[in-house]
């Protein structure tokens, strides 16, 4: 532990901080605390969703596996979010996309039983690169990466979904839908050709805000936006870029539309396709998807600026056990999140557990000695989620 704290901390202070971290509110009283995987087992085998209990030390143990009765594809786009969690008072559900069939399977968190299956229109398919999702308490949106469509589903009681309609989308150069995220009445998307776009979802079905544009980074030619996060106040949209280094772009969306992005070069770790803000928004976690580590950058919520923070060491098992990093999830819903989890794409896959410390403008990311937690159920893990979810 000593390595995790600044040298001016006395052993006593360090111990106190350690206790505080361990007892930080990880979940609401009485709620289970899970890290959830979309195992994405390729059809014709039945795929599954695996639930991990989160220990006080941040370590994961398998709670159960739910067979969905459908199939996955064991791969696809990094930024397609294949697990979504709804914690809406009495309704607590996990939604997992099924790439082979294009369905959305819902699971009751309480019982870990299948609640429903939902499908879009006949044209909605994502069997090559996956089906992503984003949701609020009223609607779930599914991005179908093959048909380049976004389906809108109405959230209904009992973890059910009702398909409303779909729209065709696409990048300025014909790129395919990739990342998708919501905030309030706004949806922001990325496409595989460097373009980004926002939509108004106040009426449910997305309507383009007419602001589709090539990101600044892609205009520079070195990179293109992939995963997205939006600040709690909706002021900034943050894009993790696919690139040969760590590049993140930020757009001011306070006007309700995308503005030209500002590009941040945050290190040499390869690619940055998945990102996630810490609950307190002081840190942006970056999954170096084509590399072998994760990166954290300091984020200024007032200005939307990013500065270099810290980088983990090479995560265990790179090349030998896994080849790509996938999406991120956090242990805690407050502060810096405690432990960062990242999907490790391999056969079988695993989840790396990385402890975070941050104080005085410095941070560390250190993989836990017992990391990773194996996911024997997944031959190609890309998406994980947390319950309870981050509050924004």
């Amino acid at each position, binding site marked *: 532990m000593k390595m995790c704290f600044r040298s001016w901390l006395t052993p006593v202070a360090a111990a106190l901080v350690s206790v505080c971290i361990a007892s930080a509110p990880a979940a609401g009283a009485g709620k289970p605390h899970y890290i959830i995987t979309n195992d994405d087992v390729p059809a014709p085998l039945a795929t599954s969703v695996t639930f991990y209990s989160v220990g006080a030390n941040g370590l994961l143990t398998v709670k159960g596996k739910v067979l969905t009765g459908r199939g996955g594809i064991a791969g696809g786009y*990094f930024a397609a979010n294949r697990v979504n969690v709804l914690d809406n008072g009495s309704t607590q559900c996990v939604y997992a996309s099924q790439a082979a069939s294009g369905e959305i399977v819902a699971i009751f968190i309480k019982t870990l039983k299948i609640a429903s299956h939902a499908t879009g229109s006949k044209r909605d398919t994502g069997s090559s690169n996956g089906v992503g999702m984003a949701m609020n308490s009223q609607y779930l949106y599914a991005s179908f990466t093959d048909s380049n469509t976004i389906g809108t589903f109405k959230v209904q009681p009992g973890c059910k979904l009702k398909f409303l309609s779909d729209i065709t989308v696409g990048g300025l150069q014909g790129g395919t839908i990739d990342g998708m995220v919501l905030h309030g009445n706004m949806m922001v998307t990325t496409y595989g050709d460097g373009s980004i776009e926002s939509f108004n979802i106040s009426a449910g079905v997305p309507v383009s805000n007419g602001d589709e544009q090539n990101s600044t980074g892609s205009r520079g030619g070195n990179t293109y936006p992939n995963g997205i996060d939006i600040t709690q106040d909706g002021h900034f949209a943050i894009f993790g870029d696919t690139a040969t280094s760590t590049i993140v772009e930020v757009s001011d969306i306070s006007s309700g539309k995308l503005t030209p992005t500002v590009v941040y070069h945050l290190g040499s770790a390869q690619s940055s396709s998945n990102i996630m803000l810490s609950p307190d928004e002081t840190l942006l976690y970056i999954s170096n998807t084509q590399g072998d580590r994760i990166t954290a950058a300091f984020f200024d919520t007032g200005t939307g600026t990013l500065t270099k923070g810290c980088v983990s060491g090479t995560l265990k098992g790179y090349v030998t056990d896994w080849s790509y990093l996938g999406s991120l999830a956090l242990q805690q819903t407050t502060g810096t999140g405690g432990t960062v989890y990242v999907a490790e794409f391999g056969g079988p896959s695993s989840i790396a557990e990385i402890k975070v410390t941050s104080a005085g403008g410095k941070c560390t990311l250190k993989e836990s000695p017992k990391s990773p937690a194996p996911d024997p159920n997944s031959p190609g893990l890309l998406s994980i989620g947390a319950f309870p979810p981050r509050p924004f």
Partner: protein
Amino acid sequence: MRSVSRYLLAIVICGFPFLRLAAQCPNRPEAGTVVNDALSLSSANGVLSAELTMKHSVDEAGYTHYCYIYDTGKGEAESPTLRLNQGDNLLLDVKDRIDLDDSAGMMEMPPGKTCGDGGMMMLSSTNVHFHGLNVPPTCHQDDVLTTLIQPGKPAFKFNMLIPADEPPGLYWYHPHVHGFTEFQVNGGAAGALVVGGMEKFHPEVSGLKERVFVLRQQYLVPWVPGPYQLTINYQVADSPSFPSPIIKMKPNEKQFWRVANATIQDFMPLQVWFNGKPQKLQLIALDGYPLAKSRMVDTILVPPAGRAEFIVQAPPQNNEAIFIALGYSTGPTGNPDLEQQLGRIDVSNEEEETTETANETESKPVEPAAAPLTTSNIKFAGLEEQKPTAQRKLYFSEEFGGTNGPIQFYITVDGQKQKVFEPNEKPVITTHVGAVEDWYIENRALETHAFHIHQIHFKVLEVDGKPVADKDMRDTMEIPFWEGPGHPYHSIKVRMDFRDPTIAGTFVFHCHILLHEDLGMMHKILVLPK
């Protein structure tokens, strides 16, 4: 739409019609038989005139074949070897008779003047690139940017002079319609072209039996990584699944082998083994350019589209000998290039069987010169001593959006925007006749690439920042993959020679992994007249 999208469209729409086709291409040699050279068509009185017809079909194993067919009058021969001498005139008529309804997956030709039939670039369209020849990038010569031959149309007429100072050696011809090159070269449409006279530069090849081996590669579905077969002169080399092709040699006999790597993406470290041990090979030429001095090697790395010409000496009788391509790592995101025995060398004093691939027309054997010529007598002479007029930096890179391999392939002039090739694009490099330029080319991708430029050869000066001992002239050169963070990019430094006024015009440079080329890892260069 960008090339990726168009390509995917082509996959979806054009994938299934393959299976409906009646056979148009000849049967290929059976596995485990003697490897014969292709039919040779040799120039006579300074002219080689021939007609090739492009067809295609699917064999019983499901492999799609595109084929250049030459009608011998007695039957059909596939991809004949074209043999010319310096100063000869090549008159080649090419007809497109690909029977395929592919109204989708098309690309527009660049605006302005077109050459040939014009129209849209489709899977059933074709043209010809004369790989390595230092000839003009103009209509009816070696122009792949505007030349289009459409199915059912009258023959397109190529008419070019082999320069009087063209390096003697092995070249090859293949289709080069952007977006569809890989489909047509996969397992089929590629043939050898020999410019005679090597013995004038390397008298050690005089009197030796010459073999021309064209190595091809066939995937069932060329755009999907997976099992593939190598072939040698169209015979499957897939040991132990199939019996090995047989290469006949007499005990202790020396033969002059001219080997073209006409695969779509296979990097081949070539060796000849006796009793399991690699033997010394006398390397004579690379990429159709005679070495200044032959050298003894045990491995010759030939990238896709590269050629190697070397002397092999057979072992005494009763020794086991094989011709083999070793495995080659193309990096974390590249396709695996597996070790494969290309042929079993059968060492015996038996007379070879007479085959129907005897020369169609015989060229008179060239007597070696009294004193060997040197490379100062051919193109690019004195290049190393030239002072470069410009320096450029280029780099290969790839981008991933997910786990299904790279989705964008770039070759970029440093400082310019990364972008994929578009037929309508403006040249990314403009230079002029007389220029001599040093290009530093870096590979920033996790996959090995093969740099190729049309119309000229280049001299290799440095590899990974270090001067090379053998500054060979090449037209295709491998640049190994980047090992990842903490490692430097691999690179080459080469000297480009634009002094020849006949190569003025617009042509291309690209990666010769053909999928990469088709997906846009290519750009134009304009050489302005002086």
